[in-house]
């Protein structure tokens, strides 16, 4: 297992390098440059000014050299200055915004896991009855409908029709409710679907029959015998769910005006903020890869049948 973990960690390095390279190439291979005027239709900078700025930011060097410099600095955690927020370094911005996104994401994940697992268990226990249909409907809705559309529905329902929560902001817990729910619904749907399928399989298994045969009542059969075993495959879902919550946060953060990383990401993209784009993509990729690794290791620890 240690060997497996180490080899996965080692593979992380070329994967991240490749991601950085692809991002770098996409940024530089497409028309347009950060030296273009930010406002549309504004006068372009004079050629001398452009040359001086390019030299100041190191954009005049050959591409391979720029990439090498970037990698050399990034290894030490230095991503340079932001092109858009010129007085701040990328690191400062990330240190400030990443915890907000992480907090929102964790709340959403917790809600998704708690809600999804309960819905799935209910659906499987009462298969083809009302609870089942209700949870399957909610799950399908959560999976199929994009989160910015869900956000609109939730705002209309819970801010305008029933003024329970504010439409945006990040000051008190009341502001946290709607973004968390919006972000949680899609992964909740996925978890509910899988839990249902997994529970149904386990409920039909021989050991559940044995538990019933020895006279246990329904609740311990479901919770102690079936649920524990059904939970194992659900752990693998957590990997892709981090991705769902992560990318979802771009939209949710900008709708609910949450001061997280997602909002900066979209702004940096359109502003051709090269250092910021590289940093966000790598940060996100590394986070996802680390989470996937953790999930795989946890899976091996939970299920003794898995060998690496």
């Amino acid at each position, binding site marked *: 297992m240690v060997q497996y973990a180490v080899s996965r960690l080692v593979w992380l390095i070329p994967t991240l390098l490749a991601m950085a390279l692809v991002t770098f190439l996409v940024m530089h291979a497409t028309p347009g440059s950060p030296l273009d005027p930010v406002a549309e239709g504004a006068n372009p900078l004079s050629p001398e000014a452009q040359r001086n700025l390019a030299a100041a930011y190191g954009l005049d060097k050959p591409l391979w050299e720029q990439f090498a410099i970037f990698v050399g600095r990034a290894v030490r955690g230095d991503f340079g200055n932001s092109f858009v927020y010129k007085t701040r370094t990328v690191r400062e911005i990330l240190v400030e915004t990443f915890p907000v996104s992480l907090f929102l994401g964790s709340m959403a994940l917790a809600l998704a896991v708690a809600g999804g697992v309960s819905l799935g268990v209910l659906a499987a226990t009462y298969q083809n009855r009302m609870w089942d249909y209700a949870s399957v409907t909610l799950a399908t809705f959560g999976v199929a409908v994009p989160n910015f*559309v869900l956000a609109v529905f939730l705002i209309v329902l819970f801010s305008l029709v029933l003024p329970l929560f504010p439409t945006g902001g990040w000051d008190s817990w009341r502001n946290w409710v709607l973004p968390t729910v919006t972000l949680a619904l899609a992964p909740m749907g996925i978890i509910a679907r899988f839990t249902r399928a997994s529970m149904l399989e386990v409920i039909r298994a021989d050991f559940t029959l044995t538990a019933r045969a020895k006279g246990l009542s329904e609740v311990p059969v479901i919770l102690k015998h079936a649920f524990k075993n059904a939970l194992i495959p659900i752990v693998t879902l957590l990997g892709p769910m981090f991705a769902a919550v992560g990318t979802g946060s771009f939209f949710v953060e900008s709708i609910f005006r949450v001061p997280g990383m997602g909002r900066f990401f979209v702004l940096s993209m359109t502003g051709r903020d090269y250092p910021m784009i590289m940093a966000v993509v790598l940060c996100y990729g590394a986070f996802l890869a680390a989470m996937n690794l953790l999930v795989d290791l946890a899976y091996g620890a939970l299920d003794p049948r898995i060998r690496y």
Partner: protein
Amino acid sequence: MALSTPASGTDARGGSIPPRGLPPEELRGQSPRSEQASVGRAATGSSSLWRDAFRRLLRNKLAVGGGAVVILLCLIAIFADLLAPYSYTKTNFARLNEAPTRDYVLGTDNLGRDLLSRMIYGARVSMLVGLGAQIIVVAIGVPIGALSGFVGGRTDLLLTRFIDVMYAFPRLLFVILVMSMLGAGLTNIFIAIGLTGWVGIARQTRGQVLALRAKEFVESARSLGARSGRLLIRHVLPNALSPIIVAVTFGIPEAIFTEAALSFIGVGINPPTPSWGQMVGEGQQYLRSAWHLCVFPSIAIAITMLSFTFLGDGVRDALDPKLK
């Protein structure tokens, strides 16, 4: 499982899909009811697998409902010019951000344009992106996956490594990156989705081809002297088709979602061409004063996504009943 009655499911449920490379007598022998199944003619070819699958699909009410909405949306997209009461660019500055009235059934936007007309034209963008992007995705993904699985060896290793790296990339993030670099526009959306979307289908095709390559019917075709190209195209790929079709039916709503998301943050479709995602994005700032701007396109997106999901679920269950 509950949706397919045992009687019709037996042919395909036995585990492997009846291979198409077999002589036709064998295939006919497997489906005693093929003469009844005149409904299935519409499905690809005439083999019993497709006919059975189509019948199973027709029995699934949610899938039929989803399919009906999808057909309706396609018709709306095709006949947008006839259906829309106004042009999508026609402004009426006397009536801005107006709630639904008799003149403007779904109200007007912040430039006084008819919301209903803009939504009808928006269907065109969504359908175009959904279908067009999938064609590109299949055209890139299937050959790469098939090649990787069929040739094997170093080619396979190289391609799978590349696929793995692309897979590690957060997809939506990459699409946003490509789009903001290329600039907004329909062609660029095709490029962006095509560049990122082929990975999943390539993986799937590779897995299928790898499994099928070792099957007896491929061996027998090879021993009869079939060359690699013929083996792959005539014997292996037709049998790998149903998972690919399932992947495509789920890929369409994903592409529609991607376009809506891109347009929502302003890097998708170029205005004044209307797109539902863009309308939600722009209407969102008027949510308090003019709720209809945001809500109607949101409903359109939700209905479209749900219909395609129901249809996709139905197609999956119909083509592979043991998955359910």
